[in-house]
C-alpha cells in the first residue's frame, strides 16, 4: 500500500517533560488511522509535529514524500488540520470563511471556487452559510470546520476529536463522511478521539499512546483478539493501565 504518512521515531522534549518518545507508525493511502490515549498522553503533541506546528526534538515524519523537518511548507500543501475545540472567525460569514481558507491553499480562482462549492455541499449548512459564524451553534461550527478540512482533498486530513460537540445524528453523519472520503476519494485520515465506539466504527487501524509511548498499533479486531477483550475500550484500559492479558 502506498504510504501517505511515515512517522519515524518522532520525539518531543519540553523543558522537563518528554511529551512524545520515539513514536513510529504509518498511514496508507485511503486509510483511517486513529490515535487514542488518555489526556496528556502525547496525542496532540504528535499530531502537532506532523502538522508542522511543533518542531520535533528527534525523529522525522514524512508526509506524501516530504519531511516535516526539511520541507514543512510542502507538507502543509498535502495536509489539513482540524484542532480539537477549534473556533472560527466570528465576524466572518461561513461562506467568507471557506473562501478565505481556500485562498490559502490555492491562488487560482476556479480552484478556490471549486473548493468552496465542495465545502458548501458537504457541510449542509445551506443558507446559514451567509450568516456570521458568531451566530452558529457549536455543532454548526464543527461541521463548517470539517468541511473546510476536507474541501481541498488533502492527501492527509488530521482531525483532532472530529465529532466533539456534535449530537449523535451529526456525529454519525460525520463518521460516514470520513469513511466515504477515504473509500471513494482515497483521502487518508489521522484522527484522535476519546470515543471508542467512534474509533471502532470509523478507523482501519488504531494506535494506543500513553506517557508519550506508542504502545501498540493494529486493527480493532486484531487488538481485541490480542488483548482478549470484548471491545476497544477494554483494550485501551489494559494497555494504558499496563494490565495486559497476553
Amino acid at each position: 500500500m502506498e504510504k501517505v504518512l511515515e512517522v519515524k521515531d518522532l520525539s518531543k522534549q519540553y523543558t522537563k517533560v518528554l511529551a512524545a518518545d520515539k513514536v513510529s507508525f504509518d498511514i496508507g493511502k485511503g486509510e483511517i488511522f486513529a490515535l487514542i490515549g488518555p489526556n496528556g498522553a502525547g496525542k496532540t503533541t504528535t499530531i502537532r509535529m506532523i502538522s508542522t506546528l511543533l518542531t520535533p526534538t528527534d525523529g522525522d515524519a514524512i508526509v506524501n514524500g516530504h519531511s516535516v523537518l526539511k520541507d514543512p511548507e510542502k507538507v502543509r500543501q498535502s495536509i489539513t488540520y482540524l484542532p480539537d475545540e477549534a473556533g472560527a472567525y466570528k465576524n466572518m460569514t461561513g461562506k467568507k470563511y471557506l473562501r478565505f481558507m481556500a485562498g490559502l491553499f490555492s491562488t487560482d480562482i476556479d480552484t478556490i471556487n471549486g473548493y468552496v462549492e465542495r465545502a458548501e455541499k458537504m457541510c449542509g449548512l445551506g443558507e446559514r452559510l451567509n450568516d456570521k459564524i458568531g451566530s452558529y451553534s457549536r455543532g454548526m461550527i464543527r461541521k463548517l470546520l470539517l468541511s473546510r478540512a476536507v474541501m481541498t482533498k488533502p492527501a492527509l486530513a488530521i482531525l483532532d476529536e472530529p465529532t466533539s460537540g456534535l449530537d449523535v445524528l451529526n456525529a454519525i453523519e460525520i463518521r460516514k463522511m470520513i469513511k466515504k472520503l477515504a473509500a471513494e476519494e482515497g483521502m487518508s485520515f489521522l484522527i484522535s478521539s476519546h470515543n471508542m465506539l467512534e474509533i471502532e466504527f470509523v478507523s482501519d487501524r488504531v494506535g494506543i499512546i500513553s506517557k508519550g509511548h506508542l504502545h501498540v498499533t493494529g486493527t480493532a479486531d486484531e487488538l481485541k483478539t490480542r488483548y482478549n477483550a470484548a471491545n476497544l475500550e477494554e483494550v485501551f484500559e489494559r494497555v494504558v493501565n499496563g494490565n495486559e492479558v497476553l
Partner: protein
Amino acid sequence: MKFFNLLKKELAELLNVQTIVSLVVAMSLLMVMGNVMTDTIEEAVKQEYTVTICDRDNTNFTEDMMETLKGYGAKINEVTDSSEDYATLLENTGKENLVIIPEGFSEAIEKGEAPEIISIARMKSAAMMSNMTNTNSGAESLINKAVSDVFAQKAGLSAEDVALINNSIKIEAHTVISDKSAEVSSSMIMSKVMMQNMILPVIVFVLIMMTSQGLMSGISNEKIDKTLETLLSAPVSRTAILGSKMLAATIVAMLQAVLFMVGFSSMMSGATENVTADISSTMTEIMPVEQAMEQLGLSLGIGDYILVGIQLFLTIMICLCLSLVLGSLVNDAKQTQTMIMPLMFGAMIPYMISMLADINSIPIAVRIFVYAIPFTHTFSAIPNLMFGNMIIFYIGLVYQIVIFVVCMFLALRLFKSDKILTASLNFGQKSKYKKSAKKQAE
C-alpha cells in the same frame, strides 16, 4: 496573492463595524467639541464688550457715563428692577450677569470718593468654559476707565496723562531661544507652543492604547479559538502570517492617527483660534506670534514633520511587536487586560510627564528611566525639534530603531518557533499544556 488574502482577513478583523463606528463617533465628538468651544469663546469675546447695567442712581452723570461707555465701543443693555434679592433680579431681567449702579454713585464721585458698583453674575457649574460668558470683567474695567477719566479731568489731567499713569512703563519683551531672539513676550510663545504640543502626545497615547488593545485581542483570540493553529498548518509561511497581521494593524493605526489628528486639530483650533486672534488684534505693535515663532526657529518645516512621522511610525511598530509578543502569552480573554498593562504604563508615564514638565529638565536618574521607555521619544519629538535639541532627538530616533529591530526580531523568532503555541504567562499557575504533561509524567 495568499498574503493579500491574509491581509484582507486581518483588515476585516481589525476594521469591523464596531471599530469604524467608534472611530467616526470619536472624530465627530472631537469636531463637535471644537465647534462648542468656538461658539463659547466667540460668545465670551462678544460678551466682553456687552455691558448690562441696572442704573439705580439715575443721574445725569450716570447717563453721561453710559454714553462714554458707548464711546469705548461697548454695547449697553439697560435694565430696570428694584429687587434686592439678586437671584430674583437676574430672573426678572432675564440676564445671567449685570452691574448695578447703586444710589449715591454720582454723589461719591462728586465728593472725590471711590464710588461703589455691585457686580452680579450667575455661576452654573465649575467647568472651565461654562462661566466664560457670565462674567462682568469687561463691564467692570470699562466703568473703571470711565470713572478714572472723570477723576483725571477733575484733577486737571489730560487723556495722555491718564494713559501715562496707567501704563507708566513700556515693556519691550524679547524672547530668546538658543541663539535666536524675537520681539515677543515669552508667555505668548508659551501659549502658542503649548497648543501645538498638546495634540501629538494625545494622539500617540490614544494610538498606543488602541493598537495594542486591537492586536493583542486579535492574537490572543486566535490562540484561544485555535484559529492560529489552523492558520499555521495552512500552506503559507509564518512570515506572511505575521507580516499580514503587522501590516493590517499598521494600516488601521495610521488611519486612526490621521482621523484623530483631524479631530484633535479641529477641537484645538476651535478652542484657540479666537483667543489668538483677539490677542493679536489688541497687540498690533508687537510682532505677530507666527512671525516671532518663525524668527525663533520654533516653526516646524515639512522635514521636521517627516521626522516626527517616522518616530510616530516607529512607536506604532514597537507597540505592535510588543503587543504580538504579549498577546501570544495570553491563555484567556481576562489575561489580555492584564497583559496590556506594561504598554499602558509605557505610554502613560511619558504622556503625563510631557504634559506637566520638560523631560530634559527633570532629574537625571528619572530622565534616564523615562527616556528608556521607547515611546517617550515620540512624546518629546516636537519640543526637541522646536527647541533645537537635535542630539537628543536623533539619539531617540536611533534608540527607537534599535528597539524596533529587537522587538521585531523577538516577534519573528516567537512566531517562527514552537513558543507561539506553547508559551504562556500564568502568574504562578502552570499552563494547561504543562499541567497535563506534568500530571501525565507523574
